[in-house]
């Protein structure tokens, strides 16, 4: 996607105006600015969560801030403060408290030696008689050692660090190479030894570790995006709240699990649904619903036509498909089974019907889920088509570039509504049917009807004389569809919050 303007659009109310629709990143209309202010002040919707986007610079700055803060309080060097913070997962309060209690224990746990006589690691000429215990070379030109005085030749140290950083992705706890020594190789030492490229990687790993250490941060999963999203909601609330966030790059994703936006379904339901769709338990269901077993050799048989007189291909057993009894007992009632009412055959058929019903229920929801997924994919083609359409419109009518943007927006809304609709089917699959589910299904249906109508409208060929009319229709529909989506999300967010529904799985 090329533009960020959609978010403004998404938040717009239904009293949507003609002039303000054509907003784009590069196009700064006074109207637009005014609108942004208004939407900022708008009360938060029930399905929205508070979050902020952090760029890589922000993340680096936040680390630097925390480090100098702690270094100031505890009177330590920056690099030691950083090491301590990393071992405390950046929990400043706990670190300071523990440090005040017993600084020795804290330093020991973080593998830091406070020795003022040797403030830095040693990089220099070896003493006579030195042998590197990694390569057993006794004539290295340069040796390296930490405060623990375990010296190794420069090349071995560089190999060792490179291996740890590049292959193992280690950054927080690279220990002195000596066996049993638990002194951490600090950042200044790494800096002195490894090549610039490896150092760059090392710093990346540190930033990555920072974001992973903090519960309120998560990297944006979009490829090549270097932002992280900061969301202060406790993770325990994610069973009732769907924390959808949007990165500055435009990517919308779930803060709880990192998958793409899956509103209104909570993360746990999404996981269950994906697992259900992925494993082949449904294949087994299909088999049990569509086939029967030979009464003699238990081969699985699918009847794909013909009469009820079955002959097992494998064991040549002859039986009746309807009552499953041996054909010989049918006597003269050929092709007309009158043994149907017998108890044994009724039981067998009941079991089969049950399994078929459960399969059909799953397929009902799955097909709709998959259909919206597929349609959303097709909408991407629609995007390209729309661009052409927009050009065409500019040529054939007196509409300006900005005035044809409504088509693009309509496609954006359509796509996001399909995503929502898609997950409503997974959601509905796990709902236990009661009076409360009806409201949900109504909302679902309304959204679906609206989405299909908009979709149809967008597929229509453009007739020159009807452009103005089409534009109005699309605009109206777009607003309507978006408001339907809002209603549905608002309602499910509230419903989840007040525990309105019963689910067929155990919620944690």
């Amino acid at each position: 996607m090329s533009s960020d303007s959609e978010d403004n659009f998404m938040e717009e109310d239904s009293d949507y105006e003609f002039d303000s629709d054509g907003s784009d990143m590069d196009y700064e209309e006074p109207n637009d600015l005014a609108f942004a202010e208004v939407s900022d002040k708008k009360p938060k919707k029930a399905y929205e969560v508070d979050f902020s986007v952090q760029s890589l610079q922000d993340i680096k700055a936040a680390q630097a801030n925390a480090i100098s803060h702690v270094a100031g309080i505890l009177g330590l060097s920056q690099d030691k403060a950083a090491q301590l913070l990393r071992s405390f997962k950046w929990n400043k309060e706990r670190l300071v408290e523990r440090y005040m209690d017993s600084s020795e224990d804290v330093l020991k746990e973080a593998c830091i030696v406070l020795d003022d006589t040797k403030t830095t690691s040693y990089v220099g000429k070896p003493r006579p008689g030195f042998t590197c215990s990694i390569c057993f070379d006794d004539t290295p030109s340069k040796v390296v050692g930490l405060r623990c005085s375990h010296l190794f030749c420069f090349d071995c140290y560089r190999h060792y660090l490179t291996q740890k950083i590049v292959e193992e992705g280690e950054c927080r706890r690279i220990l002195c190479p000596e066996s049993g020594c638990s002194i951490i190789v600090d950042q200044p030492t790494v800096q002195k030894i490894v090549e610039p490229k490896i150092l760059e990687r090392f710093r990346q790993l540190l930033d990555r570790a920072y974001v992973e250490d903090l519960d309120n941060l998560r990297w944006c999963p979009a490829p090549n995006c270097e932002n992280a999203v900061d969301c202060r909601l406790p993770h325990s609330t994610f069973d009732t709240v769907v924390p959808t966030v949007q990165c500055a790059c435009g990517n919308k994703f779930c803060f709880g699990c990192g998958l793409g936006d899956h509103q209104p379904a909570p993360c746990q339901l999404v996981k269950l649904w994906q697992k259900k769709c992925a494993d082949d338990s449904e294949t087994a269901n299909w088999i049990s619903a569509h086939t029967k077993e030979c009464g003699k050799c238990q081969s699985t048989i699918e009847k794909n036509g013909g009469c009820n007189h079955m002959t097992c291909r494998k064991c040549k057993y002859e039986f009746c498909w309807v009552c499953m009894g041996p054909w010989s007992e049918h006597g003269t009632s050929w092709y007309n089974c009158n043994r149907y009412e017998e108890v044994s055959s009724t039981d067998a058929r009941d079991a089969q019907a049950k399994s078929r019903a459960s399969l059909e229920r799953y397929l009902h929801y799955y097909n709709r889920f998959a259909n919206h997924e597929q349609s959303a994919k097709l909408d991407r083609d629609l995007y390209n088509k729309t661009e052409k359409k927009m050009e065409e419109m500019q040529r054939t009518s007196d509409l300006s570039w900005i005035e044809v943007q409504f088509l693009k927006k309509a496609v954006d809304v359509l796509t996001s509504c399909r995503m929502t609709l898609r997950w409503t089917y997974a959601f509905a699959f796990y709902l236990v049917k009661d009076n409360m589910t009806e409201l949900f299904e109504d909302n679902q249906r309304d959204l679906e009807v609206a989405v299909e109508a908009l979709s149809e409208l967008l597929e229509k060929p453009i007739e020159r004389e009807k452009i103005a009319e089409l534009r109005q229709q699309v605009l109206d529909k777009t607003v309507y569809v978006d408001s339907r989506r809002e209603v549905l999300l608002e309602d499910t967010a509230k419903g989840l919050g007040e525990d309105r529904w019963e689910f067929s799985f155990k919620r944690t």
Partner: protein
Amino acid sequence: MSTPTRRRLMRDFKRLQSDPPGGISGAPCSDNIMLWNAVIFGPADTPFEDGTFKLALQFDETYPNKPPTVKFVSRMFHPNVYANGELCLDILQNRWSPTYDVAAILTSIQSLLHDPNPNSPANAEAANLYRENRKEYQRRVREIVEASWEC
């Protein structure tokens, strides 16, 4: 194959020949210095006494920054040895240090025979017997000790 690895392995071999720790021996294959065969003699005063257990050590160019893959070739019955002969030993995994050499690896394995760690079992049956029925454990170990003489 990087030269530092090869040089280091040659030095490991020299050290193993000139100053061999008791009860172990090892040498690279004649045509491949990255593959070693080793023998550990069962330590005295353990059920493994008198056993001659063969091992294979596979090195790659990351050695000594990374540990080699070590496997028992002889049949083994020990709480920390998997059915396929692979070992569960901390210094061969996360506690590896590049200062370890072949002699150090083999001595560690030798002492593992002496002191199994039934808390992280690779062979659940051996671990259970070691904890609950020492006599049966010893009997099962004696079986593989005798088997080790045959091939």
